[in-house]
């Protein structure tokens, strides 16, 4: 941290930011081009002289895009709330209580989080089909547990471990039961960690593709990633609409990332760095 940044460094930085952001920039520019300028000679012009919002209108009028957004929101929110709730108890026990087999349990959680989705898809598909859960929210929320729960437990354990043990000892001295300690001392201190975990789980559930692709095939139950990916027809690909839809899903993401970047980074790196 002692090194000082020179002007050359900022040039490099600007280039880096430009390269990473270029696809988004181009998609943003394309989304306001009229259809005729997406193809042919003008396809490679950066700026259009006839900006239009037609693609945006079309995304919402000609496609059930609002419905996709709603579906994704419902599925991701319920998945997040329920897995983080269940995981919070397990993580507290693993991080804070003494009992045999903790390391094995944590190892199992980590192993499950590495499971390839494809290895679970056929039985899960048969299961949701048997119970008539294809094309329903529950049909995605149940399978999403496979990745959301291990992720939540893993992250929460690292956050719970960071809370000082002295507080717990003091509460014990004063005669608090473990449950009282949990609700009155640990949970309030763990709120930032729980929040960070929720953001990461939400993003993971929002982005999920394979289960959503196979289980919810009806237009009214598709999620955003599948919905956008299926914009492409058999012969034509509506690039204008795809660009507009991409911009629509990216903007809330950018806002979220800007607001919570510190938390997200702490969550992403918490499992990988020993402090």
């Amino acid at each position: 941290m002692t090194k000082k940044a020179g002007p050359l460094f900022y040039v490099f930085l600007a280039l880096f930011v430009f390269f990473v952001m270029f696809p988004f920039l181009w998609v943003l520019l394309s989304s306001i081009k009229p259809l005729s300028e997406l193809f042919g000679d003008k396809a490679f012009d950066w700026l259009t002289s006839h900006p239009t919002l037609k693609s945006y209108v079309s995304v919402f009028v000609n496609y059930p895009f609002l419905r996709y957004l709603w579906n994704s929101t419902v599925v991701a929110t319920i998945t997040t709330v329920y897995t983080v709730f269940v995981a919070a108890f397990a993580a507290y026990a693993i991080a804070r209580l003494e009992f045999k087999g903790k390391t094995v349990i944590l190892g199992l959680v980590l192993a499950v989080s590495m499971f390839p989705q494809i290895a679970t898809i056929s039985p899960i598909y048969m299961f949701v089909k048997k119970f008539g859960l294809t094309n329903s929210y529950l049909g995605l929320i149940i399978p999403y547990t496979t990745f959301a729960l291990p992720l939540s437990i893993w992250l929460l354990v690292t956050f719970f471990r960071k809370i000082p043990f002295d507080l717990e000892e003091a509460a014990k001295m004063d005669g608090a039961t473990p449950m009282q300690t949990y609700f009155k001392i640990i949970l309030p201190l763990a709120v930032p960690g729980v929040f960070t975990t929720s953001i990461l789980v939400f993003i993971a559930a929002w982005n999920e593709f394979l289960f959503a692709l196979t289980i919810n095939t009806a237009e009214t139950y598709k999620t955003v990633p599948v919905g956008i990916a299926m914009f492409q027809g058999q012969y034509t690909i509506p690039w204008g609409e795809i660009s507009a839809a991409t911009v629509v899903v990216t903007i809330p993401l950018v806002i979220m990332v800007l607001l919570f970047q510190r938390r997200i980074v702490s969550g992403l790196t918490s499992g990988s760095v020993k402090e």
Partner: protein
Amino acid sequence: MRNEKRMERLLGYSLVAPAMLLILAIAIWPVIQSFYYSLFDYRLNDPTKSSIHWSYSLDLEGYLQNYPFLKSALKQEMAAADGQTKQTLAQIEQKLAKLDAAIRSNDQVARQYDKVNEVLDNFETPSDELKIAELDKQTAERLTDTVHDVVRALKEMKKAGELQQADKVVGLAEGLEGVVIEPNFVGLKHYKDSFSDMRLWKALWNTTFFTVVSVAIELVLGLGIALLINKAFFGRGVVRATILIPWAIPTAVSALMWKFLYDGQNGIVAHYFETIGLVDRMGDLLTTEAGAMFAVIFADVWKTTPYMALLLLAGLQTIPSSLYEAASIDGATKWQQFTQITLPMLKSSILVALLFRTLDAFRVFDLIYVLTGGGPANSTETISILAYKVMFSQTNFGAGSALAVVVFLCVAIISMIYIKWLGKDLLSDSASVKR
């Protein structure tokens, strides 16, 4: 004190239990089932194979929709025929009646038999549980053989013009051919077939190539970026946000975005690649084998290098700067500092980042499914894509599950290798209770 310890242990187990049960039921059990499915010839589009059978069984619906009608048709033919033909027909009828008696000799089957008959008489469809009756192997084989003989005999008579309603009789007899459901256990056949199929090896090679090349590039670039931005500078927030956005966007959406940028006619990135001579023609990017693989790797590197840099940066920031100060006082060059201090101190961060990235890359699905669909000519078909296609396009769940198990085993092996390198670092709870 001892009691308190026991209480704590009990509380611990009961708090962990719900999560563990969910993980067992929704993640571990399906993997076991996948393996189980892979041992069967299990196909969704074939009614006789759309579930798993250990033993022979009889489709009573199919049987009862044909046998009674065949019986009465044969009687009609017998009444109209004479001499040799009449005798043959009588033999056939007797054979079938004996067989019918054999089927009904089992009480349980007889009960189902009558029930299905009743349901069919009411013009309703019997439930799957009701209409499938278990059959012992002997009767099942006898049924298959008998029906086979009967069909052959009737066809010959039809040819000889000895039957009045030849088409009807033969049709009803043929209707009995599909009523025996054979056990579809095939053992390790799917694995044997898969491993002797070039397509699996090609997919494994594609997956490995994609994983090794993209993870290697991501590591080198990520480390470079992490080293460069590991200093105080103006605009850290912007850079951090820039890093997070490609990571946060759904892979399927970013894949579609790259498909647009790579487009052979109006893709800007394809256009620039052509201009700088990276590809001969714009169209090559997604239509040639090498071009498509390059395109997929490039898109993956774009999406995950920033994430890699972030993990490594967090590792770098834990290295105390006093180490570097001491080294430079001792006259160590920058390169020596890098190889002697940075790399050893960063080892566990690098390994963890590599572990996560390697596993992620090995099970890649969304990116390739949307960007190339595995094409052209299966040149970017990874093992997950292949398994998905076999399962859901060919609806061959047995063979697809075998491929899924192969993916699972590969991932398990890769994890074990890394965990061995990492040692217990990953799981040890250094910050945990030391009472």
